[in-house]
């Protein structure tokens, strides 16, 4: 701003003229200072958006000037975030408009040493060509005599950072093309939450919202580093604290979350089931449960079949098959009443044979009768008694011995739980991936679910299980799954076995009673959305077009298939497995066997450049010029450059509008998938091959706009919502039909576009509505914010207490009403009793809140759905230096999934020679300043500078024992790899007394990799591929390592050191493999 030269404005004259005679204020304010206007005011418009980092989904305002985003801030109107942003959210301007993002397509020829430029159009053509050819070459009509109709040579990974609309197109097109190996971050983050919560309550998503934690009397954060991973949601914990709630943090590692808790309970990593089992035992043995709730709403009174046998001295439930290393769950069923699970293992042999295999139709389940109940809870085979016996050995002494939690601390936790539950008070659990990422992760979530059911905390204000999810739309990429085992809305992907038509599939997988009883409506509507007019009753609505599964095709199985050479083409959509997945070495080895790799990201992440600078190149194990893989890097558009919805951790779909156009060759994933699909369809046009029909008959027309022909996300969302035969938008999933007259891309999202209005774009300010924020955006299902909220009222429909009222029956109006949308049929009175033989929603009685469950009850005991047992049981982690003293005959989860490969070796059992080589326990966590595998933070200087280096946190005791120096270096070694990290000696880590000896634990963040601005070794070089059998999630929250002072060797000596340790520990292909 030019300064006015008029002498009258000279500061000295102003000083003499005005009041500021000494020239300290008004007189010396310069013209430039005066003219300085904030860019928030100078912008042309404010665009509503959503933060692209974690799943809190903080609402953002984009300030746009001259069609460029010039500032990004929190939106104060938002009920969930209240205008606040964490450091990552605050850095989104630098993330999106900084200079770290690539703008052009890069191409690496086979055997080439470096990238070259390629124009976007040519690159798209080349990828189209490769896609078509690889698909053809890898086509499979049958596997072991069963029709599979699929392509096993192409796989895709990533989607949790994308919009729902993008995930929808990816899943839709790739599935139509026959590809089953479609996975995203949800697999490695919270897939076990889906199993745990889904089997327990009916839906595999968080039952509540962070904002409702303010109503809690007790908040137990366990398996969650909430203050660091979800800082803006942590405001609600602080809010509860200010209202007098008690906050407990149970964790192996004292984090910023612990600092603000009232009580921090350190425990040994990987022992939460023992800890929670101890609390369950306390509640059961002291009968401190909320008995009315338990009898009315849980399966505590249900009688289990005689065949069931609890875990005995062999550490096994009934039904175990040594050869298959897994269970046949049929012996776990209720007496005379076979029920299907609402989530988890559904379309599997055990279920299908029992439910459909006898050639019975959908009445089969009814024919087997209703579950028998004993409301007195005295029957020896009722769930209550089974549970009580199962957890009897989880005593305070056991907890102390196994977890390292002193008995007085444990007693205090138990006391607080019991005192803060019941009619007048509620307690909430908050968990994150600290619980999910274990070889028995689904059961961690089950254990918490059992406790919350016993204490009557589900469906009530301040209660619930709050699953903190970690990517902007990872909930969405679970709901509209870029996952191999589900179709949109948690409809299972069909397996290749007995049932080959739609009816058998439905009968074999869905519960007959409750809302899963309508699965045929959801499935037919989905098939109509995908294949439109081509899907008719005559052709079973194209059900045969769906490729079939044969076992697990999780991302880890995909890696094995890459190494084997089956998978030739691989898409990475914003995921960085070379840093973020377990055993990153295996990830890179897999990619090195590919014919082609497509990476879509902001910057050149490690998964894009391993062929030129990965650890195996440095060590000389791989030579760049011998790697044949062609690599395409496509620069991705950022959230501010596209519109669409993210589904946040509270199941809320928020529409984000576009603030600016992407530059150069940056494109949205919607653009990429849509145009790739179009090109593939053009290439296949006219094909008479049956293989290509699902692709050619697919509905694949969306309006485009602008010079880039960006497809309309709005019409994709409309397709997801669905319409009726007249083309009118549906308003809720109960309108769906199984006669082909309705179309719906994801039944649980039906209603997000009700009345033809994009409900996800609603932004009614928090101050104009109650705490549930029901009119801000839209939550599935049916805009219900707190799930199972029918349980906030007693069986007669009255709130259990005034203090904890949420929804209740208004007998005058004849409807359910309250502070939230009732999670129940609005006009079904509490006294409704289903007529004999009723099915579907009609079979739901008026006093049963868990409407997705086959028996409408919360499952304390899971008769189906969870692969490793009906009740959570403590097994040691895959790599643990501690023996399982609860079940000495069974060290590890007998049903876990392990992979035999020379680069995926496991550690010895504690009683084997060499067991003491890897004697320290590692747990991993996120830092506030970084995000997952670092792709969105390590390149962002404002964040990189806050946590510039990879470090490990060790106790002073361990440091003294091993000669580790604070701020020096340590080398950590496992049977898979070795890394170096800066040493942080801190009192926040503490040795624990376990089984009578001292055990050390190390805390390690996992965000670093070799690329970016802040660089470092990746923690996942150390971890192994060992998975939870129900969800196929990897165990990275508890493992064992060796630690020594100093930096790691360079070059070939790095793997040499690993080999040396393996030899010292006597590791062979059999080590750690025993079931």
């Amino acid at each position, binding site marked *: 701003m030019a300064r006015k030269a008029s002498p009258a404005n000279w500061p000295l004259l102003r000083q003499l003229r005005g009041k*500021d*005679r*000494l020239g*300290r*204020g*008004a*007189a*010396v*304010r310069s013209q*430039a*200072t005066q003219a*300085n*206007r*904030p860019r928030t005011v100078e912008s042309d418009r404010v665009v509503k958006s959503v933060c692209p980092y974690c799943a809190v989904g903080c609402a953002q305002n984009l300030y746009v000037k001259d069609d460029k985003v010039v*500032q*990004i*801030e929190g939106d104060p109107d938002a009920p969930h975030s209240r*205008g*606040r*942003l*964490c*450091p990552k959210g*605050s*850095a989104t*301007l630098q993330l999106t408009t900084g200079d770290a993002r690539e703008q052009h397509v890069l191409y690496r020829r086979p055997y080439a040493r470096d990238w070259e430029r390629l124009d976007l159009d040519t690159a798209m053509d080349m990828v189209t060509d490769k896609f078509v050819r690889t698909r053809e070459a890898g086509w499979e009509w049958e596997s072991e005599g069963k029709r599979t109709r699929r392509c096993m040579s192409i796989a895709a990974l990533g989607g949790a950072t994308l919009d729902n609309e993008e995930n929808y197109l990816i899943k839709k097109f790739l599935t139509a093309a026959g590809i089953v190996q479609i996975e995203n971050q949800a697999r490695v983050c919270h897939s076990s939450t889906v199993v745990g919560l889904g089997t327990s309550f009916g839906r595999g998503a968080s039952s509540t919202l962070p904002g409702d934690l303010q109503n809690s009397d007790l908040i137990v954060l366990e398996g969650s580093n909430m*203050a*660091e991973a979800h*800082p*803006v949601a*942590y405001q609600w914990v*602080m809010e509860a604290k200010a209202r007098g709630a008690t906050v407990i943090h149970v964790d192996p590692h004292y984090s*910023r*979350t*612990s*600092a603000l808790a009232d009580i*921090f309970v*350190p425990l040994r990593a990987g022992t939460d089931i023992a800890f929670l089992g101890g609390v369950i035992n306390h509640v059961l043995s002291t009968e401190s449960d909320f008995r009315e709730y338990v009898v009315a709403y849980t399966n505590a009174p249900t009688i289990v079949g005689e065949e069931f046998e609890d875990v005995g001295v062999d550490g096994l439930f009934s039904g175990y098959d040594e050869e298959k290393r897994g269970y046949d769950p049929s012996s776990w069923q209720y007496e005379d009443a076979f029920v299907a699970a609402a989530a988890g293992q559904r379309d599997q042999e055990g279920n299908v044979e029992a439910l459909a295999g006898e050639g019975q139709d959908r009445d089969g389940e009814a024919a087997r009768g209703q579950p028998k109940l004993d409301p007195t809870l005295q029957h020896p085979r009722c769930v209550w008694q089974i549970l009580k016996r199962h957890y009897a050995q989880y005593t305070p002494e056991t907890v102390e011995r196994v977890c390292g939690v002193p008995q007085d601390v444990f007693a205090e936790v138990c006391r607080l739980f019991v005192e803060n539950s019941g009619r007048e008070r509620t307690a909430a659990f908050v968990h994150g991936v600290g619980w999910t990422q274990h070889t028995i992760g689904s059961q961690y979530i089950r254990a918490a679910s059992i406790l919350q059911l016993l204490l009557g905390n589900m469906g009530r204000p301040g209660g619930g299980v709050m699953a903190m999810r970690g990517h902007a739309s990872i909930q969405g990429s679970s709901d509209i799954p870029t996952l191999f085992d589900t179709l949109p809305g948690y409809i299972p992907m069909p397996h290749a076995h007995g049932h080959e038509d739609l009816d058998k599939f439905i009968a074999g997988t869905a519960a007959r009673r409750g809302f899963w009883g309508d699965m045929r409506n959801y499935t037919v509507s989905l098939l109509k959305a995908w294949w439109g007019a081509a899907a008719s009753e005559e052709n079973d609505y194209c059900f045969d077009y769906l490729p079939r599964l044969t076992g697990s095709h999780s991302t880890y199985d995909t890696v094995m298939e890459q190494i084997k050479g089956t998978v030739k083409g691989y898409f990475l959509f914003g995921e960085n497995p070379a840093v973020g997945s377990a055993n990153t070495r295996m990830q890179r080895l897999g990619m090195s066997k590919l014919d082609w790799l497509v990476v879509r990201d902001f910057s050149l992440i490690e998964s894009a450049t391993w062929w030129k600078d990965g650890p195996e190149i440095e060590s000389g194990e791989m030579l760049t010029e011998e790697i044949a893989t062609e690599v395409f890097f496509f620069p991705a558009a950022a959230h501010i450059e596209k519109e669409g919805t993210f589904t946040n951790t509270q199941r809320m779909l928020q529409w984000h509008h576009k603030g600016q156009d992407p530059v150069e060759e940056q494109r949205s994933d919607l653009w990429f998938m849509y145009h790739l699909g179009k090109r593939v369809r053009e290439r296949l046009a006219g094909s008479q091959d049956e293989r290509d029909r699902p692709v050619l008959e697919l509905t694949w027309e969306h309006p485009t706009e602008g010079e880039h022909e960006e497809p309309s996300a709005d019409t994709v969302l409309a397709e997801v919502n669905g319409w009726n035969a007249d083309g009118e938008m549906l308003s809720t999933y109960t309108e769906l039909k199984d006669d082909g007259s309705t179309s719906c891309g994801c039944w649980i999202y039906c209603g997000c576009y009700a009345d033809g209005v994009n409900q996800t774009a609603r932004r009614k300010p928090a101050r104009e509505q109650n705490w549930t924020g029901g009119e801000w955006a839209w939550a599935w299902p049916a805009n219900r914010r707190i799930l199972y909220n029918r349980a906030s009222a007693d069986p007669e429909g009255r709130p259990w207490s005034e203090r904890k009222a949420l929804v209740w029956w208004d007998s005058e109006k004849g409807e359910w009403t309250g502070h939230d949308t009732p999670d129940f049929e609005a006009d079904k009175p509490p006294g409704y009793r289903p007529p004999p033989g009723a099915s579907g929603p009609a079979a739901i009685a008026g006093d049963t809140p868990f409407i997705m469950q086959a028996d409408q009850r919360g499952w304390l005991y899971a008769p189906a759905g969870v692969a490793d047992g009906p009740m959570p049981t403590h097994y040691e982690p895959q790599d643990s230096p501690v023996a399982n003293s609860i079940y000495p005959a069974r060290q590890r989860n007998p049903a876990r999934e392990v992979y035999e490969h020379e680069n995926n070796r496991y550690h010895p059992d504690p009683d084997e020679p060499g067991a003491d080589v890897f004697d320290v326990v590692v747990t991993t966590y996120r830092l*506030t*300043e970084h995000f997952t595998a670092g792709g969105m933070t390590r390149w962002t*200087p*404002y*964040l*990189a*500078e*806050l*946590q*510039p280096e990879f*470090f490990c946190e060790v*106790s*002073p*005791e361990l440091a003294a024992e091993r000669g580790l120096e*604070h*701020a020096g270096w340590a080398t950590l070694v496992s049977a898979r790899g070795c890394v170096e990290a800066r*040493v*942080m000696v*801190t*009192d*926040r880590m*503490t040795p624990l007394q376990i089984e009578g000896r001292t055990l050390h634990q190390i805390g390690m963040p996992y965000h670093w990799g070799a690329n970016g*601005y802040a660089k470092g070794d990746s923690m996942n070089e150390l971890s192994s591929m060992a998975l939870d059998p129900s969800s196929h999630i990897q165990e990275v929250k508890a493992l064992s390592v060796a630690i020594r002072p100093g930096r790691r060797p360079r070059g070939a000596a790095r793997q040499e050191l690993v080999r040396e340790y393996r030899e010292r520990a006597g590791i062979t292909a059999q080590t750690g493999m025993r079931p």
Partner: protein
Amino acid sequence: MSTTGERPELSGERPELSGGPPPAPEGGLLNILLEHGDPAGASGWQEHPPRMGFFTDTSVCIGCKACEVACKEWNEVPEDGLDWTGHSHDNTGGLGADTWRHVAFIEQRVPVGGHQPNFQRAPAAGEEGKDGFRWLMSSDVCKHCTHAACLDVCPTGAIFRTEFGTVVVQQDICNGCGYCVPACPYGVLDKREEDGRIFKCTLCYDRLGVGQEPACAKACPTDSIQFGPLEELRERAAGRVERLHEAGVIEARLYGERPDDGVGGDGAFFLLLDEPEVYGLPPDPIVTTRDLPRMWRNVGIAAGALLAGAIGSFAGARR
């Protein structure tokens, strides 16, 4: 006057809030005359808005550093280098030309008892009796002193008092002389070496001008950083201390909120859970220009005497 070790007084009487003129501070004469109570008015701002400031409640700080980043984004402050310090989670080090908000992390071994700590760990060697642990976090910032020595010494008029009572360095005026750097009792002012000028927190003067709160306060996830009229913040802070004391957090105390302290009270004050030194704050900050008026007076007297002597000698010579 020290703000430390005064727990009983802090919880009870707060004379400066009960109306009436507060006791005279020890600051320099200029300051007393000009700035006390109404620094903006004393700097020539007529009908100015109420004095605005920060209340940073460290008892709810989660150490997320959103304040650091939000500040940098808004004010386009350069990134500060990749130094892993090993000092807990603090890799910023302290306030400086390129860090206008700084979160301190203090890991403490303390005796068990009372509300804090929340964690009893295994006792370590040499730390007998201190088997409790707590982790303190606090976001530091320019204090926007009532008696701002930086402003006193600035020879160019680059540093000025705004109508909100805040203290701002004007970048188009600053010539980088650096007088203000040693003048600040808190060590806030700092020269950006590659630029040559002095930079510090402006309390987002541009945003205040249009009724928007500073970027750090807006972002703060737990409302640890609160922005508002200083008087209101002081009342709120007093209430917060009271509630914490009732809840057994007896170590809670305010820092920098008293108008009778060595800088006439801070425009940005804090609720701390330990002595200020623990957080790297001076326990007893005094405006470094306190003695300036007396020095000038002495200089004046000396000069006068000299002059008188000189005149006298000339006068004598004429006789």
